[in-house]
């Protein structure tokens, strides 16, 4: 296993130290409870926005804490959802009297741990906590009888947009509705050229032949839905974009598009992918109004990419354009 780490036990902790040392002007870390907090939390009168999940997806979530985005992030072990104690500590630290909103990616572990935190918080403290679940991954069958779709790339866009709404002073109910709207209007799909290696596991999560790729991959190195022969950027873009367009009607609205790298894919290739995604959407009459190209929701060192498309409107675009100042996303400030 080739990694720049000290010991596998301390990967998350060591990295949090680095994050705080590098971005101490924006965030602080509560090491006892393992929570990344906005430097100036709690903001009185503002809804506190809390997210979290397994580590290994950096910059998400800890890198999205700061002005105009999250108030707190709860990092679990690598690819393991955080525990309720973290979320309860986060809720308390960010509660500015206007309630707290949890943004939860739809994984059994994340949902159950956030649920337990909310139950325990309701019992112990008086803070009003609401949750919105992101489930945007069209690679996964959506059904009442399964765990449902995974939460993937759309989480980044939701944290930015709902974060801007919270910064603007919108109240908890309005933000719950906003988050649900974003979830309803966004879809994603990803693929991997290589596996990643969970530090504690010490070997690659899956084996891929030299001429193979996984299409419909998750962000935890869960094997994808389908193994295929390597293909060109153009064909890969089609494999990702077409299922998204087939799932939701994107015509008639401007779109916020993200071409995301899984951690091991160079920017050179992500821009090639963006070019292809842009052309395919153009052919379908879909116009990209805003974009993000880069590594925003990763799977350790996995090589691969995902595409997220969010149907926008004036309000969403306004919130997208609002200033954001976090370690991982920064504009207008």
């Amino acid at each position, binding site marked *: 296993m080739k990694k720049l780490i000290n010991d596998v036990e301390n990967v998350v902790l060591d990295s949090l130290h680095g994050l705080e040392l590098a971005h101490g002007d924006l965030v602080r870390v509560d090491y006892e409870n393992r929570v990344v907090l906005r430097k100036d939390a709690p903001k009185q009168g503002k809804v506190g926005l809390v997210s979290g999940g397994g580590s290994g997806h950096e910059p998400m979530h800890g890198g999205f804490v700061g002005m105009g985005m999250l108030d707190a992030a709860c990092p679990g072990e690598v690819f393991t959802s955080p525990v309720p104690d973290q979320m309860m500590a986060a809720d308390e630290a960010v509660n500015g009297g206007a309630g707290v909103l949890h943004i939860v990616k739809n994984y059994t572990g994340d949902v159950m741990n956030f649920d337990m935190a909310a139950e325990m918080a309701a019992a112990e403290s008086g803070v009003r906590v609401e949750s919105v679940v992101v489930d945007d991954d069209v690679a996964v069958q959506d059904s009442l009888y399964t765990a449902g779709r995974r939460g993937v790339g759309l989480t980044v866009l939701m944290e930015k947009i709902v974060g801007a709404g919270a910064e603007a002073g919108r109240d908890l109910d309005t933000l719950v509705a906003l988050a649900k709207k974003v979830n309803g209007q966004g879809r994603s799909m990803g693929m991997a050229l290589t596996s990643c290696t969970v530090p*504690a596991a010490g070997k690659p999560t899956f084996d891929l032949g030299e001429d193979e790729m996984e299409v419909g991959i*998750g962000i935890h190195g869960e094997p994808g839905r389908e193994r295929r022969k390597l293909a060109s950027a153009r064909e890969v873009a089609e494999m990702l974009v077409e299922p998204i367009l087939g799932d939701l009607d994107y015509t008639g609205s401007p779109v916020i598009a993200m071409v995301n790298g899984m951690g091991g894919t160079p920017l050179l290739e992500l821009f090639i992918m963006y070019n292809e995604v842009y052309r395919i959407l153009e052919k379908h009459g879909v116009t990209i109004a805003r974009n993000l190209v880069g590594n925003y929701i990763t799977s350790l060192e996995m090589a691969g990419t995902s595409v997220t498309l969010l149907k926008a409107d004036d309000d969403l675009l306004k919130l997208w354009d609002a200033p954001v100042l976090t370690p991982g996303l920064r504009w207008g400030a």
Partner: protein
Amino acid sequence: MTDLNPEVIHTWLADFASQVHDNAAWLTDLDRAIGDADHGSNLDRGMRAVAALDASTFSDSAAYLKKAGMTLVSTVGGASGPLYGTFFLRVGAALPADGPITASQWADAFEAGLTGIVQRGRAEVGDKTMVDALTPAVTAFRGAGDNVAAAWQAAASASAEGRDATVPLVARKGRASYLGERSAGHQDPGASSVTLLIESAARTLG
């Protein structure tokens, strides 16, 4: 009839913790095939914390098990943390006061644990989860009569059968469900650790 007290519970939990530790790489490997390669390290982290609890500080078995459950909730994370945590919390709450305990009282407690898991995870038998190894264990225990040791043996075998039966299944809950048909042919990691738990019980609570 056996005797319920914190020392007995400690023996069980310590045995389970060492089983999980010794099998952590195997559990993680099972999770690598149809999940995200962390079930062994998750549960090992949690059970090490549980094993580090000082049995002598608990007034009774119920308090001990409640603390074990909370410790798992607070240290494991993932899907298995809340599920295992809930299991021990519910078992602790459902057990009678310390002292002599009958087979049917054990069965009631474990059934309460199972119910907790089902309420939290909403999985049914056949969904390829830990429920597939725990449900037949509880049923077999209850059907085995008054001899606690024999009941635990029956539960352990039934659990192992339930675990083995997960191999051909297509997962409908948890991370393995994302694989669809590709999840068939692999043994469920959570069902595998549950069988270790029941086997530990058979060794230490019988």
